């Protein structure tokens, strides 16, 4: 295999994983933008969707149906989370909201452990996602290609949503100045619910692709994805949607780049190197690459 082909293969790998991080980060950024809350339970929405899909698959449903139900389950879980855990404490200090998100995470993860046991279960991938495509000397996992395409489509749809629909523009307004948005008579409850619903749906999609990539699911599977999503959001600029997307791809590319460049003795410490580089980046641009500069004025 030539060097170009190797590069291309790694590039597809990087963009694929970057797409997943980007979609996750958007969900986090949407909620953070309006509520100033980092919903760490966002990762568990991946888990909810994946287990729901698995149950459907075990019951004999075709993959597309199981996937759809899984995504809907994630969206519903996100909406319930908002209604039950976050709406009652709206207006509380940031620390209280952060602690609540930890509480939700712990609750969901342990509930899943009780239901499904901590043992990872295999996640059967359908033929379309499980094959390796061959282009001459180039070998590409089909799930990677699908991830890139799906992410592309979703990003286009999202862009349309936040620029052309009333709810979408209201969401942007609310994330810039919540008080002014309320003074306009924007239905803040509806906008927040929409942010959670969309973000959770995206998490559901990421969950499916992630589960196929990794091949198995477990109750704690959401931990690393939400951490990566949070980091991606911070790099790109917390609260900014384009920032979340940019951060996701930067993180994905950085990971694969280091995976390839580090000597084999150091590859287990790849993440450490990635984070060191990100710390350096944040030293120069503390608000992230596309960061919103001002905090909300009281």
């Amino acid at each position: 295999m030539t060097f170009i082909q190797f590069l291309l293969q790694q590039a597809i790998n990087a963009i694929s994983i970057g797409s997943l991080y980007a979609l996750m980060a958007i969900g986090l950024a949407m909620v953070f933008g309006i509520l100033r809350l980092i919903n760490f339970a966002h990762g568990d929405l991946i888990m909810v969707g994946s287990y729901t899909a698995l149950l459907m698959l075990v019951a004999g449903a075709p993959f597309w149906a199981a996937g759809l139900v899984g995504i809907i389950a994630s969206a519903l879980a996100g909406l319930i989370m908002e209604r039950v855990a976050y709406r009652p404490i709206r207006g509380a200090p940031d620390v209280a909201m952060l602690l609540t998100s930890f509480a939700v995470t712990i609750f969901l993860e342990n509930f899943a452990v009780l239901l499904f046991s901590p043992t990872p279960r295999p996640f059967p991938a359908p033929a379309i996602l499980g094959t390796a495509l061959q282009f001459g000397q180039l070998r590409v996992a089909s799930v990677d290609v699908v991830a890139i395409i799906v992410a592309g489509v979703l990003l286009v749809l999202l862009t349309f949503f936040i620029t052309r629909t009333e709810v979408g523009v209201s969401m942007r307004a609310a994330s810039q100045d919540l008080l002014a948005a309320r003074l306009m008579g924007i239905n803040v409850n509806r906008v927040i619910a929409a942010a959670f619903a969309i973000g959770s749906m995206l998490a559901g999609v990421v969950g499916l692709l992630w589960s196929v990539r990794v091949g198995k699911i477990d109750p704690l599977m959401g931990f690393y994805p939400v951490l990566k999503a949070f980091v991606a959001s911070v790099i790109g600029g917390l609260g900014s949607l384009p920032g979340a997307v940019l951060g996701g791809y930067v993180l994905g590319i950085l990971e694969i780049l280091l995976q390839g460049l580090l000597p084999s003795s150091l590859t287990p410490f790849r993440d450490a190197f990635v984070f060191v580089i990100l710390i350096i980046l944040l030293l120069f641009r503390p608000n992230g690459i596309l960061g919103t500069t001002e905090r909300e004025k009281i």
Partner: protein
Amino acid sequence: MLKLENVHVYYGHVHALKGITIEVRQGELVALLGANGAGKSTTLMTISGLLRPRSGSITYDGHDLTRADPYDIVGLGAIQCPEGRRIFGGLTVQENLLMGAVRRRDRQAVRQDLDWVCSLFPVLGQRLRQTGATLSGGEQQMLAIGRALMARPKLLMLDEPSLGLAPLIVQAIFDVIRQLHEQGVTILLVEQNARQALQVADRGYLLETGRVMLSGLVTELYANPEVERFYLGGAA
């Protein structure tokens, strides 16, 4: 049209409004004057439903607003243009204006109002596609007022529209306020700049540390030596 009766508002333990009684009749332009911290913005925030009175009542157009939600209050046509502009910096001028009309359902009329606002403030019409953050202070104030007007307010509440602006721009803005008043819009104007406010108002209230100290027709307020000394620069 709007009546506050003995309204008490607290920020935690701080007693911000101590029994405010204020009235704004249909078609009037009423000025709410006072120094920093007197409670003027607090009064507007309470009317808009972002703060809840601990006691007292607020009635508007026959509705009881005391425990109402901002969403419903805007629906009734009581619109506030808040202190410090608070425009949406990341949204374009057009998006800002359309956000002002977000509560309305009549698409055609909204389009017409957009043209009307741009005729009142031509500079907005020139900058429709620019983001709010790129506008100057005066332009942002015009955008904020325009945004409020997009809601077709029955009661327009302006919080310190002259704050931080050059005198020429302040003149231009107050010309528009005067125009709106002549067109019959009911206006409650909060201002530290007492001179400007009294030039356009019918009546005024003077607030001091949460209480209404003085009230009356503008002519009466002008004649009052206290007002003259503390708020209008005073005689030598």
